[in-house]
């Protein structure tokens, strides 16, 4: 598959028309790295190869299926009023599992707020991701336990944190690598541009993993850029590569290669995973206002899970018993997520005043005392009323 077939399924782009009028017509859209076609056929690439055991292939499939199941459960929990919001990763499982499984334990991840599949790969309990969407905290996991930083909501900010962290890794003389996740919308943010500059001049061991899911809420990628995003890297002096973001094998191979390059001290790489946000931006969004149904249908034919299943079946790497067992595991996961979320307690009111400062603050102490007395005053009147 080339990007041409992708573009053909989309609406005509006025911007690209202007580009071709202003410049020499480009011979073709950029190729993307692909190792598994949408039809489930295993293909080779001159620069990226991968040799996985049947066990590893089944593992990737299992990761994607369970991630999608978890994601569907979270969407349902939002609809049931258990979560205030959910940002679905539907359609981006291959990009996240492929890149996530390329990481070593000592590598460090800086996610956006949609990296549920990467969190899964890092061993973060999926139910921990739901606290912030339920509103009981702003991030319920210890980032240092799994080297998986907290979700960052303000778009693009975390790319600088990843770069700084990578600068620290280099200072320590470690051969760990850092990966920063962001999207096509974030590519317009100044912080992303600055992170490219800083990582390039300090040769920081960081991989910029851009999931181009074609939409920044309602704005298409054409509203963010006039060149394919991976080509931005060239201007900063490091390589960029576009990978089929719905091909878990290609995402794994390309990310692994970029991470190894970082470990060798050769600096940053930009990976553009060309994928599609199958669902809404979040549960508050209504994509029918800005995009056509046939676009989604075209991407459904390129589904990341379906193509790996086809390959697993045709290659004989998985049998019916495997798929049946996985279905059961999925349902067990969904049930556990449901139960944990429904039992998630609201925080104690006085916890408002915790964690504002590491060393404390006299101002917070004073306000805590006032609030505490205010609360106690109700307890007193309740006593009197008895």
């Amino acid at each position, binding site marked *: 598959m080339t990007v041409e077939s992708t573009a053909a399924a989309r609406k005509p782009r006025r911007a690209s028309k202007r580009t071709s009028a202003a410049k020499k017509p480009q011979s073709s859209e950029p190729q993307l790295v692909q190792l598994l076609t949408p039809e489930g056929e295993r293909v080779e690439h001159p620069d990226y190869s991968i040799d996985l055991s049947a066990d590893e292939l089944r593992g990737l499939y299992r990761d994607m299926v369970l991630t999608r199941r978890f994601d569907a459960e979270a969407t349902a929990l939002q609809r049931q009023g258990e979560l205030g919001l959910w940002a679905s990763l539907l359609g981006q499982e291959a990009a996240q599992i492929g890149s996530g499984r390329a990481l070593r334990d000592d590598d460090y991840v800086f996610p956006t707020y949609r990296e549920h599949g990467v969190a899964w790969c890092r061993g973060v309990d999926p139910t921990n991701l739901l606290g912030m969407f339920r509103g009981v905290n702003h991030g319920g996991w210890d980032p240092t336990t799994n080297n998986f930083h907290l979700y960052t909501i303000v778009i693009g900010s975390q790319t600088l944190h990843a770069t700084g962290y990578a600068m620290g890794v280099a200072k320590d003389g470690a051969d760990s690598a850092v990966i920063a996740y962001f999207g096509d919308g974030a590519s317009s943010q100044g*912080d992303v541009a600055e992170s490219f500059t*800083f990582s390039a001049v300090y040769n920081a061991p960081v991989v910029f993993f851009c999931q181009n899911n074609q939409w920044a809420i309602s704005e298409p990628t054409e509203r963010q850029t006039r060149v394919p995003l991976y080509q931005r890297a060239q201007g900063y002096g490091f390589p960029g590569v576009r990978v089929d973001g719905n091909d878990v094998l290609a995402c794994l191979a390309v990310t692994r290669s970029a991470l190894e390059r970082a470990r060798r001290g050769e600096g940053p790489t930009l990976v553009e995973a060309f994928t599609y946000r199958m669902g809404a931006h979040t549960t508050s969004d209504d994509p029918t206002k800005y995009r056509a149904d046939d676009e989604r249908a075209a991407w459904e034919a390129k589904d990341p899970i379906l193509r790996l299943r086809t390959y697993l079946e045709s290659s004989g790497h998985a049998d019916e018993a495997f798929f049946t067992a996985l279905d059961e595991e999925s349902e067990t996961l969904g049930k556990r997520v449901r139960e944990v979320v429904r039992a998630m307690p609201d925080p104690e009111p006085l916890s408002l005043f915790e964690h504002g400062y590491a060393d404390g603050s006299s101002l917070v102490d004073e306000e805590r005392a006032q609030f505490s007395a205010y609360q106690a005053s109700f307890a007193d009147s309740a006593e009197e009323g008895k």
Partner: protein
Amino acid sequence: MAVEKMSIAKALNESLRLALDTDPKVLIMGEDVGKLGGVFRITDGLQKDFGEDRVIDTPLAESGIVGTAIGLALRGYRPIVEIQFDGFVFPAYDQIVTQLAKMHARALGKIKLPVVVRIPYGGGIGAVEHHSESPEALFAHVAGLKVVSPSNASDAYWMMQQAVQSDDPIIFFEPKRRYWDKGEVDTESIPGPLHKAVTVREGSDLTLVAYGPMVKVCLEAAAAAQEEGKSVEVLDLRSMSPIDFDAIQTSVEKTGRLVVVHEAPVFYGSGAEIAARITERSFYHLEAPVLRVGGYHVPYPPARLEDEYLPGLDRVLDAVDRSLAY
């Protein structure tokens, strides 16, 4: 004895040197901080002695400087960031307010952000636009940040030490027009906690509260008032977040009158917060309304007008007179 007379600039330089020497995790980052030693030479000679790996010249991008400092802090470093001038901090304001200030709470206390952001601030040096501002209230308003400013060489030395040792992000405002004022620094004796106010002149008729560059003006005003038989106490606030309200309260309950002085605009300034809290705490002790002297609600003016804009000796004395005459 290790008492030395030095300028505020030298005290900061010595303090940064000590921090680099004491803790290998301390880093200095900023524009032109290396070979040049910063535009005010506060980091002079540090890169030569500690190397480019510890004293890091950065690309010209303030958000990038603070954003990467956050990442370095997450890796276990203790970055001291220099913002070249007050008016240049705003490209980094997002990283400071949405990330640096909130990340500790976001992580339920599981990670710490020991980052010091140094900002030379204030006017009085005849500079072009964006080089003379006092944005401290914009940071003090943000929970998760602590905001301090020394007024003299000893505080410059010791408050920097304390800021570097703090596990909270500290916005460290340096009174740039006082950089070359000299004072005694005892490098062996810590004067007191970082967030406590200090009475720098005792008095009984009225309390002047100031910080940073305005402490000197207030001391001069108190001396001038003394000649007219008025006894004015001067408190050096030192910390704008948190504020040592106990110290102000104690002084005001002794004198009965309070005037707050800062270069920043009075509208929504630290003086407003102090006036409100002290009115609440010490209402029956006040003989006059709390008055404020500061900048006006206009963009910082061209240099030839800054003497009109900035609180000087006469404007402070005018407020002292108004309070005493109330």
